């Protein structure tokens, strides 16, 4: 293959699992058996793609792919394949492939195989994404995707409450860690000046000298530790064992929990080597290693034992990386490989045992050797690797680990503690490995099992066989098997040539060898006295429970949140609004108290027009508030305010605003009147005097703050500062003389697009709120005078019909001139709607809809589409979205006509406005018709 096509293979490897996941769901509908073949096929293809890239990568080169995504945020879609990512990717896909085979035989026929395979594929893609990401932000996205797929997989059996519970716990812990990681990555990226892995790795000195190094380190470590089940965040992992066993084997031992370790290895060159790194990572790793190794021995559930053992081994890897030495990194990475191999194999063996014997409780299980010697042999090989017996792969990395603990000097006089702790942890590992084998396969005759066991199908054993064989092959011939992979990965982690190390099995009678022998002997001894230990453990260490603590904590949090919510939300709007207003008062008022000096110039000349307008608005507002219990009067008073605002806009050099406000005023008033038709004419209940007094006081305060702020703003009068730019560019860039219009359709066209989208949403929401509504309609006003029996007076109908073409003409005129004079799509749209609504009001919904066969949502959607397409059109021409263009056309009879692409955009705006306003108002009108029992024409019934 040409090196030039490497990136294509890389992309295929990263994308294929994601593409396959939804397909798996569909395939299974067709035939259940097919989905396993399909998933397996995908695994094989991805694995092959990775293998073809391996020779180049192992040689030290790296394959890369960089596509800009959101460059302004530093986010790139960039993939990297170097030694480290190759190693992890091969583990993820290779073990995934075996899991796919195993799952097919493991899953009972009544369980949804398709969902399981789809989720496993999704997970495989996410995990590959983590290890292949060349950008930390991209990595984080995949990181969260693994949390999500883990959540879905743990809760796979949705009917079981404990499965849902465990899934929730795992999500809270890992996604919480993800949030911390996000913060950590953002800080690292800010320090390094970019988020690409290269940039961050190259900024070691800057980052370690930065004052925020420690917070960034702690946050990043939180992400890694939660994911990799380090104490005290470990408890989600044993809980997650309620998932189907293939999931436990894959996500919760071989792959996902390694993501945290991968992150530590990835950022090793930047973050390691400081005292903080050493104490935090070594401390956490050591605690986890010892604590979990101890607990594992006391778990009677096979999967529980394996889960704690996994936590312990993850602690071991963390500890090794924490040392910050090159050899520590070598040992850590080597152990990642070995652990993935033997632990996935053991989990699958545990699944077989559960499947065949009907239980996973080691107090019930015994004597299975007689029934399944092959499975037992395979399990023994893997367990020997877990215990660190020579000639098995676990031994090699454990020796390296022992050797590393001997060489640490950070603890000064307490240096001897590390080798001691390592040996103790090793002894416990031996003890629980022996327990796994002896309790299950020997230790009795296997008479009283829930099921009579026998060997599982060949292909269920085969994946275990592959991995067990690997344990042996790697353990005996490390140089011929993993050495190149390990070397490539170490090179990538250290960003330097790897140190001298030897993978030989026999190094002579060294101190690490002695430690190994001690651990073996100690382990067997511990196992021999296990019954006494169990009794002691139960007596003195009552049910240890970080889980309980977590549950109580979350329950407390929920109760607190509930109490807070109930205080704020007592079911009354009054309290929210009061809270909001008080906040506004405090926030807006504090700068005033903070020594803002008010300047009161001598009263200026105020023109008579301005005075009258102000009087109109102020008295209208006061009347609305005062008369609000007489609702019709209040609406009239409110429209006075609107009218005053129109005058204000007109007087203060805003003709466009005046026009729009005027037109909107009409439809708003119609809207209020239509609604009022369904509501009581008066507000019957009156609040207490005290309450009204308090409300009035608060309102006056808020009003005063608003007035002061407005006054200060007007005095400063800086303007937006952008106006000069817009004024200067309007004609040359947009061809518009009306600057407001140029801003709307061109400079800030994206905003306008957003705003008409909001309108469309408002129309949809209003429609949804009114759909199927039934209201009791008053037949008479408050004094008992009945409403007019004639809903559509003839005079009104006859006078409004000629108005329609006139209004339309005005609308067209305003629309066309909008680019140069006050007008445009918004105002033309509102005027058209007003004219149409008038027809509905005067002649009835049925009459109008028979003549105006228009679906509102077609008009709204069409308008939006037109606006978007206009913008896309500019992009096709290589210009930014929504750039306006112009064309000179010769039209016979009209001469030369200049057409702007902005006009198509304006037409879109126009359509959305018309569709929205008419939709809302005619629905309200129709409501009244339905209530009145009028028979609607057939097309109305929809």
């Amino acid at each position, binding site marked *: 293959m040409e090196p030039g096509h490497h990136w294509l293979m890389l992309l295929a490897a990263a994308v294929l699992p994601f593409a396959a996941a939804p397909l798996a769901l569909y395939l299974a509908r067709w035939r259940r058996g097919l989905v396993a073949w399909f998933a397996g096929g995908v695994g094989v293809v991805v694995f092959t793609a990775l293998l073809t890239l391996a020779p180049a990568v192992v040689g030290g080169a790296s394959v890369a792919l960089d596509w800009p995504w959101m460059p302004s945020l530093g986010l790139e879609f960039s993939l990297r394949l170097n030694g480290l990512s190759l190693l992890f990717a091969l583990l993820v896909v290779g073990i995934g492939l075996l899991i796919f085979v195993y799952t097919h035989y493991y899953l009972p026929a009544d369980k949804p195989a398709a969902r399981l395979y789809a989720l496993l594929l999704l997970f495989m893609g996410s995990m590959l994404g983590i290890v292949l990401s060349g950008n930390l932000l991209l990595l984080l996205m995949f990181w969260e995707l693994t949390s999500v797929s883990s959540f879905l997989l743990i809760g796979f059996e949705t009917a079981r409450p404990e499965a849902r519970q465990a899934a929730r716990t795992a999500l809270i812990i890992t996604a919480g860690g993800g949030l911390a990681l996000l913060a950590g990555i953002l800080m690292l990226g800010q320090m390094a000046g970019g988020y690409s892995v290269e940039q961050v790795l190259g900024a070691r000195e800057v980052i370690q000298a930065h004052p925020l190094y420690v917070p960034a380190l702690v946050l990043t470590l939180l992400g890694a530790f939660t994911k990799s089940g380090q104490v005290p965040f470990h408890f989600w992992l044993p809980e997650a064992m309620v998932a189907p066993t293939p999931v436990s084997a894959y996500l919760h031992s071989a792959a996902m929990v390694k993501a945290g370790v991968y992150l530590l290895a990835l950022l090793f060159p930047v973050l390691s080597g400081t005292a903080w790194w050493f104490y935090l990572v070594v401390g956490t790793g050591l605690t986890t290693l010892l604590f979990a190794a101890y607990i594992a021995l006391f778990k009677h559930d096979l999967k529980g034992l394996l889960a704690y053992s996994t936590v312990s081994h993850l602690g071991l890897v963390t500890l090794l990386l924490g040392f910050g030495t090159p050899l520590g990194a070598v040992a850590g990475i080597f152990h990642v490989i070995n652990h993935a191999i033997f632990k996935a194999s053991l989990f699958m063996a545990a699944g077989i045992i559960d499947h065949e014997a009907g239980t996973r409780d080691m107090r019930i299980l015994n004597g299975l050797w007689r029934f399944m010697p092959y499975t037992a042999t395979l399990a023994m090989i893997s367990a020997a690797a877990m215990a660190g017996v020579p000639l098995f792969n676990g031994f090699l990395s454990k020796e390296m680990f022992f050797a590393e603990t001997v060489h640490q000097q950070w603890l000064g006089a307490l240096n001897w503690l590390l080798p001691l702790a390592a040996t103790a942890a090793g002894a416990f590992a031996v003890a629980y490995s022996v327990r796994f084998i002896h309790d299950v396969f020997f230790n009795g005759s296997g008479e009283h099992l829930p099921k009579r066991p026998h060997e599982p199908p060949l292909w269920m054993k085969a994946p275990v066989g592959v991995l067990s064989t690997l344990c042996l092959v790697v353990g005996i011939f490390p140089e011929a098997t993993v050495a190149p992979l390990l070397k490539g990965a170490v090179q990538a982690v250290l960003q330097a040539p790897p140190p001298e190390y030897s993978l030989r099995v026999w190094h002579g009678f060294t101190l690490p060898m002695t430690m190994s022998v001690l651990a073996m002997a100690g382990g067997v001894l511990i196992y021999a006295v296990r019954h006494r230990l169990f009794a002691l453990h139960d007596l003195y260490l009552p049910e240890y429970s970080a889980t309980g603590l977590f549950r109580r904590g979350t329950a407390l949090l929920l109760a607190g949140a509930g109490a807070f919510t109930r205080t704020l939300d007592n*079911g*009354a*709007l*009054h309290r929210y609004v009061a809270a909001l*207003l008080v906040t506004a008062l405090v926030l807006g008022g504090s700068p005033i108290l903070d020594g803002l000096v008010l300047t*009161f110039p001598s009263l*200026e000349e105020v023109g008579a027009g301005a005075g009258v307008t102000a009087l109109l*608005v102020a008295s209208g*507002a006061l009347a609305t*508030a005062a008369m*609000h219990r007489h*609702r019709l009067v*209040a609406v009239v008073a*409110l429209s006075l305010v*609107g009218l005053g605002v129109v005058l204000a*806009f007109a*007087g*203060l*050099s*805003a003709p466009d*605003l005046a026009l*729009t406000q005027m037109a*909107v005023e009409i*439809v708003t008033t119609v*809207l209020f009147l239509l*609604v009022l038709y*369904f509501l*009581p004419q008066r*507000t019957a209940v009156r609040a207490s005097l005290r309450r009204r007094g308090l*409300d*009035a006081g608060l*309102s006056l305060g*808020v*009003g*005063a703050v*608003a*007035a*002061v702020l*407005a*006054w200060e703003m*007007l005095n400063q009068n800086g*303007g*937006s500062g952008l*106006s000069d730019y817009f*004024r200067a560019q309007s004609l040359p860039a947009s061809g518009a003389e009306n*600057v407001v219009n140029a*801003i709307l359709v061109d400079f800030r066209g994206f905003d306008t697009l957003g*705003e008409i989208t909001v309108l469309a949403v*408002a*129309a949809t*929401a209003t429609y949804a*709120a*009114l759909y199927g*509504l039934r209201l009791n309609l008053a037949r008479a006003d408050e004094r008992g005078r009945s409403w007019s029996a004639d809903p559509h007076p003839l005079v009104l109908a006859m006078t409004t019909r000629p108005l329609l073409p006139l209004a339309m003409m005005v609308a067209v005129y305003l629309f066309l001139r909008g680019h*140069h004079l*006050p007008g445009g799509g*918004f105002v033309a749209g509102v005027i058209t709607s007003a004219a149409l609504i008038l027809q509905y009001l005067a002649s009835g919904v049925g009459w109008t809809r028979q003549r105006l066969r228009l679906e509102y949502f077609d008009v709204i959607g069409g308008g939006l589409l037109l606006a978007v397409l206009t913008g896309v059109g500019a992009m096709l021409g290589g210009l930014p979205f929504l750039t306006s263009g112009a064309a000179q056309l010769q039209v016979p009879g009209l001469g030369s006509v200049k057409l702007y692409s902005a006009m198509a955009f304006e037409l879109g705006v126009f359509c959305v*406005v018309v569709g*929205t*306003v008419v939709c809302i108002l005619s629905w309200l009108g129709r409501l009244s018709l339905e209530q009145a029992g009028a028979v609607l024409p057939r097309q109305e019934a929809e």
Partner: protein
Amino acid sequence: MALLLAGVIGIMVACSAYLLLRGESFPVVLGLTLLSYAANLFLFASGGLALGGAPIIGAPGAGEVDPLPQALVLTAIVIGFGMIAFVLALVLRARGDLGSDRISEGQGRE
């Protein structure tokens, strides 16, 4: 002129706040409408006040007029209508489903 406008905005905000604190839905919507008038005026005023001009190239006094707040307010006016319409639809729905337009204590939480 500035003092006058600031005073009017203050009165509008005070009246709308009082209406927002009422216990029935309809006055609250009136308050919301009044508040959106006030907010539009406030936003508009941020560009400074100019008399007798227009933000149109070639118009007298065009250099004094800040077009940006005007553009912002223009869409705000239309969106304001959409918002009021939606809130009114909710008012009707609440009345239809709950049989009352009271929104004070003891209502809404069953």
